[in-house]
């Protein structure tokens, strides 16, 4: 009976970069196959569909720039998620913090509309960060003081801020000439300047890149980042090590919220030029998905967000060229993430051949 080989599944002690790449490849192939299947279901040629998706996202200079524009809020909310999740603070409230940032930024604008352009934009960015941060802090304080799960509070705060926005837009900030619930267009001096002349790519993209580097440095190179990582690995042990857990949680919510707030200001002053409920298309929730896609690595957020922005942008070309509904792209995004999550779980195991002794 000796020497009969058996298969055994065992958890890998270390999941290295090679396994991560394997997981990514596995996820992309899997997602592409399922997407091709969905394209076939929609009576379209899968190859033509993928070509249209590429042409509509990165196939030419103008559409590529537009993909980057779509990526801006996703970079910022993705970073906000990353910083919170690395410390195991489950901030699902990016959506609400985005609106809170947009509200306070708009408030700064209507209070000081006649400032020169540079100080006005700096003021708007600052207020956006403060607004998002304060809205995040609310959930942080409830968690620290009353030990209420921040998942629940941040989700509920998302609803509250949308109703506050609706209240403001049906009252003081309403554009009287419009049928819709929205503010008047903001003045030219408050509109974010273009990063590249003649395109819609506004300075929010630069803000996003700077934020990505700043969050990378914060998490990897600073004492606070060490505390965040320690908190994420083991909150109990972090407490024993003398890390002030409650304070770190509050700081995380502040940083995370301020990043989401910046995303709100970017959409308001860089994209729509007015305050309305439609400034976010679920960017807060998509940010969480992007953060997971990027494996909670700040620098990987940027390509992940651009990938998602490109998919959204390419979906229009997909619909025009092949008649496949643009909604397919949401499904593709979700399938990519699910495959990646499943792939990461799969590569953390290895098959060992065991021989009976």
């Amino acid at each position, binding site marked *: 009976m000796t020497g009969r080989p058996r298969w055994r599944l065992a958890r890998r002690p270390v999941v290295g970069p090679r396994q991560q790449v394997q997981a990514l490849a596995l996820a992309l192939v899997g997602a592409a196959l399922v997407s091709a299947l*969905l394209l076939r*279901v*929609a009576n379209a040629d899968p190859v033509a569909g993928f070509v249209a998706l590429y042409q509509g996202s990165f196939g030419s200079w103008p559409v590529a720039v537009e993909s980057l524009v779509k990526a801006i809020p996703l970079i910022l909310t993705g970073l906000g998620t990353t910083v919170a999740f690395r410390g195991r603070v*489950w901030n*699902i409230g990016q959506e609400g913090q985005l609106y809170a940032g947009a509200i306070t930024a708009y408030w700064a604008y209507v209070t000081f509309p006649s400032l020169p352009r540079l100080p006005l934009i700096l003021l708007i960015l600052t207020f956006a960060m403060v607004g998002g941060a304060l809205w995040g802090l609310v959930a942080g304080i409830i968690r620290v003081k009353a030990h209420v799960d921040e*998942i629940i509070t941040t989700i509920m705060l998302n609803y509250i801020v949308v109703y506050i926005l609706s209240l403001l837009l049906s009252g003081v900030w309403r554009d009287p000439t419009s049928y819709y619930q929205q503010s008047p267009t903001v003045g030219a001096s408050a509109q974010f300047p273009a990063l590249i002349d003649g395109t819609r790519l506004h300075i929010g993209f630069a803000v996003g890149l700077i934020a990505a580097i700043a969050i990378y440095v914060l998490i990897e190179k600073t004492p606070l980042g060490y505390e965040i990582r320690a908190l994420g690995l083991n909150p109990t042990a972090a407490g024993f090590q003398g890390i002030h857990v409650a304070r770190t949680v509050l700081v995380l919510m502040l940083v995370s919220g301020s990043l989401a707030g910046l995303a709100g200001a970017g959409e308001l002053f860089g994209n729509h030029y007015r305050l309305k409920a439609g400034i976010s298309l679920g960017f807060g*929730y*998509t940010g*969480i*998905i992007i953060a*997971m896609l990027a494996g909670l690595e700040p620098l990987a957020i940027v390509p992940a967000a651009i990938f998602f922005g490109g998919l959204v942008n390419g979906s229009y070309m997909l619909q025009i060229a092949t008649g496949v*509904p643009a*909604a*397919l*792209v*949401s*499904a*593709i*995004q*979700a*399938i990519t*993430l*699910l495959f990646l*999550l*499943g792939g*990461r*779980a*799969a590569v953390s195991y290895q098959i060992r051949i065991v021989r009976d002794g």
Partner: protein
Amino acid sequence: MGESLLQAAVVINVLATMVRTSTPLLFGAIGEVVTERSGVMNMGLEGTMLTAAFVGFLVAERSHSLLLAVVTACLAGGLFSLILAFMAITLDVDQIITGLAMNLLASGGTLFWFRIAYTQTTSQETPLVALLKPWPIPLLSEIPYLGPILFSHNALTYLAFLLVPVIWFGLYRTKRGLQIRSLGEDPRAAAKRIAEDILQMRGLQFSEPRVETDLYEPKRFPGQMHYDVWFLVDARVPAGTKVDLPSWYAELTWHDPRDLPAAEWARGHEDVAARWLHARNESAQGG
């Protein structure tokens, strides 16, 4: 007089609407209670509802059978949750993230499917299905005020309210319910806490919890059977690590339960706790 009658009608209408619109919330909340009690946070509830609603609509629109639609909607919701369960439980992927991804999948997937299924939709030819008919309960619906508020709804509303005591009974009065609730209590964290905080034994590695059940006759209550659900967590010392045993640890006597008659070792939990505390106190006094 006429005005107060009108006001009463409005109030009754509002209250009846509240009961009716609480139906989906109630179904969702009951489902979430069961999963949360088992320790799984189902963030994909929204997507599950959306998918089930869409499948139900498709079936109703094609087959004109609402019963078939409701049944397939339930099946669709169950299948959708099964994907979530496979990810979150079998593959051990984060539950929140999986749920959010499933929500995105549902919102995109249903819209995609809808556009495929109904390509040439104009406002005139919007696909419609029949609504569930209200089903007033004989006699009860005749009660003034209460009748129209509580007893003049469709079958699903009654079902949602009836499910509340049913699920309560299931969770609190059945073997399976006890197992579900105990699962949600995170036995591994509890074992870790006891080992590290109370026994002061650090460096142990803990296995995944497993469930074992047993039926026995307690010594103190002859003739009565006692039912226990245990969550066993094995701890082992990783190679190269030294774990300091508490000084009183050796004084505890352990019996292999398999060598003893059932009535000998199967005592109440308080007996075990008392014996353990006694041993600890003695060791504290001795040292």
